[in-house]
């Protein structure tokens, strides 16, 4: 896994949205790699740039207003210099995406089977009948009960869980090597969410895809990820294997996220919440973007943005208080 080049790599990728009034610095110098058969979870709150990062990989952002800099390569191909027609060959074929809200991501006027068949026909050049046969296989693969009947169903006729399964089926229709999942379980109920997570985990293992899974829920990451990257203010502030990051978080933001997650047994006591609110990315702070909310912030934190400090094998964090070695934060804890 390590000797071949990564399936996906992003180097110093920044995304800015430019308009007449202001520029939003949504993603700043993000570096990440994804190996074949690996599940990477990007964890972050709303506005942290996690969805924008995903859309940058697919170049799904509005063309005129978006400035993407850096390098994104997927299976050796440079995404940022690719023509529109090559991009649309790539989307849904080599890289495909599932979205949070299946009701708005699916087309309401075509049956689910037809939409899947259309994707297959577009990429494999087969007939719509052959596409329908493939759609049936796919619906069975994602465990849709009575798949044959559901093939003819329209999105509004399906429940939330089935709709999300149909969307997963569509994203898998051309055997992608990379699956991008943007909060696919957030809109689902707890009992359905766990079904979909288990399904995605099983499909990922069977098909050997690389998956980037965006979520704001640490519990979801614990359930599905191999590696996690924590985003804050458009930067990856901490990354490492899921058990290291969740059990031994090094960045004050990750620590704050974990301590502010509600457990039932904390009843009657205050939750250690992170004070304040996330930065406005129209005017990103000069130094560390977390400094205004950080209890450990020092004068340097407000002046210069911290570099990515390697703190272990495949483990790094952006914090001035960390030293490049396997040591904990020098002050506090």
């Amino acid at each position, binding site marked *: 896994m390590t000797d071949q080049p990564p399936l996906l790599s992003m180097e110093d990728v920044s995304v800015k949205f430019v308009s007449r009034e202001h520029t939003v610095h949504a993603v700043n110098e993000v570096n990440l790699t994804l190996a074949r058969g690996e599940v990477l979870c990007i964890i972050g709150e709303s506005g942290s740039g996690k969805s924008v990062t995903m859309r940058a990989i697919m170049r799904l952002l509005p063309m005129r207003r978006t400035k993407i800099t850096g390098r994104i390569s997927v299976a050796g191909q440079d995404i940022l210099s690719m023509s529109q027609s090559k991009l649309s060959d790539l989307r849904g074929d080599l890289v495909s995406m599932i979205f949070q809200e299946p009701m708005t991501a699916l087309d309401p006027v075509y049956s689910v089977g037809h939409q899947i068949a259309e994707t297959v026909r577009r990429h494999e050049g087969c007939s719509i009948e052959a596409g329908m046969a493939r759609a049936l296989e796919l619906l069975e693969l994602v465990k849709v009960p009575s798949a044959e009947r559901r093939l003819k169903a329209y999105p509004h006729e399906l*429940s939330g869980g089935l709709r999300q399964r149909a969307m997963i089926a569509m994203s898998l229709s051309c055997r992608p090597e990379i699956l991008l999942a943007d909060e696919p379980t957030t809109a689902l*109920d707890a009992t359905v969410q766990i079904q979909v997570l288990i399904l995605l985990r099983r499909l990922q293992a069977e098909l050997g895809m690389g998956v980037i899974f965006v979520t704001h829920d640490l519990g979801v990451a614990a*359930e599905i990820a191999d590696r996690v990257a924590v985003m804050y203010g458009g930067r990856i502030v901490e990354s490492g294997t899921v058990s290291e990051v969740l059990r031994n978080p090094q960045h004050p933001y990750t620590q704050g996220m974990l301590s502010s*997650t509600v*457990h*039932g047994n904390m009843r009657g006591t205050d939750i250690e919440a992170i004070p304040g609110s996330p930065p406005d990315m129209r005017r990103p702070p000069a130094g560390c973007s977390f400094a205004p909310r950080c209890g450990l912030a020092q004068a340097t934190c407000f002046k210069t943005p911290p570099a990515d400090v390697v703190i272990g094998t495949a483990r790094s964090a952006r914090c001035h208080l960390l030293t490049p070695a396997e040591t904990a934060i020098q002050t506090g804890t």
Partner: protein
Amino acid sequence: MTETAPSIAPVDPTDTRDRGGKAQPMLIARELKKHFPITGGILNRPVGHVRAVDGVSFTVMKGETLGVVGESGCGKSTLARVLMHLIPPDDGELIFDGEGVGARDGIEVRAMRRQMQMVFQDSYSSLNPRLPVEESIAYGQRVHGASAAEAKAASRLMLSKVGLDPEVFGPRYPHELSGGQKQRVNIARALVLEPRVVILDEAVSALDKSVEAQVLNLLRHLKRHFSLTYVFISHDLNVVQYVSDRMLVMYLGEVVEIGPVDDIYHRAKHPYTRALLASRLSMDPEIRVEEPPLTGDPPNPINPPSGCRFRTRCAFAESVCAERSPKLPGLAGSEDHFTACHMYDSASGHSRVGNVPDDLPACDAVAS
């Protein structure tokens, strides 16, 4: 930031509005029903009903927090609106501190609303976009007869109590606030009428985790400060366990289990409650859920299954479950742990009465 820490001071617990005394429940709901008609055909006649709330009975004690949990479509939000009489119930009665709401000799809906307020999930759409937030907060008092100056003063005081500086945030419009700040404004608006009961309908669900924690802390402090009673509706089981004293589990418009929070989290009875608890994510990558505790989605509330509504997804369903619908054994008091399941009713004839396996989806595996 300019948000100040909430200023909390003790308040006089003897409330002159208290009528029934300490033992009188704040709210008693008996057999509340709300069915929404579905119209169709050329004459637009009702062709069916969504049984959103179907015979729900429970009590809310004074000073407690009752958590209400359930999946989407189970009727928990309709229940909240029926309690506020934002949607009048089709049937059943609601007793507020010993007085029937809207009944003859009872308390008027308007007077009840003065004492019972609600916070909604969507913090933006529940504020008027064309009013500065301090005026949105003052509006309630104006409606109930206060002068403009009084209402504004009360509104500014309340803003400071929810941790927002009234000088900075009072004149702002809703779109100039973050999600957490807007939800604080909504809480201030609910509290400015000095209610005794606050219904929180998914009040923290749309917030980011770090902000959710701030708002939950605030709610806990305000509850003590104003001696409030909460009805806390949420789909997040961890949050409900954190805030509630007692909880109520709904499935397709019916109460399936009610009882003290610790009893339910450690010794859940109803198979649905157990499955719901087992669906919680563990936060520990070493302990992953391997088998989903339930398959399928909740059925359509338009034509719910006969008998027990959960039987289509239940591993223990027998013929009796399809024939008769299980009932709660009575109106649950503050210590009672009741469930509507044939397996716990010796008269039902279910083969597992008195012998319910404990090795159902492990209830406590993910706790801690």
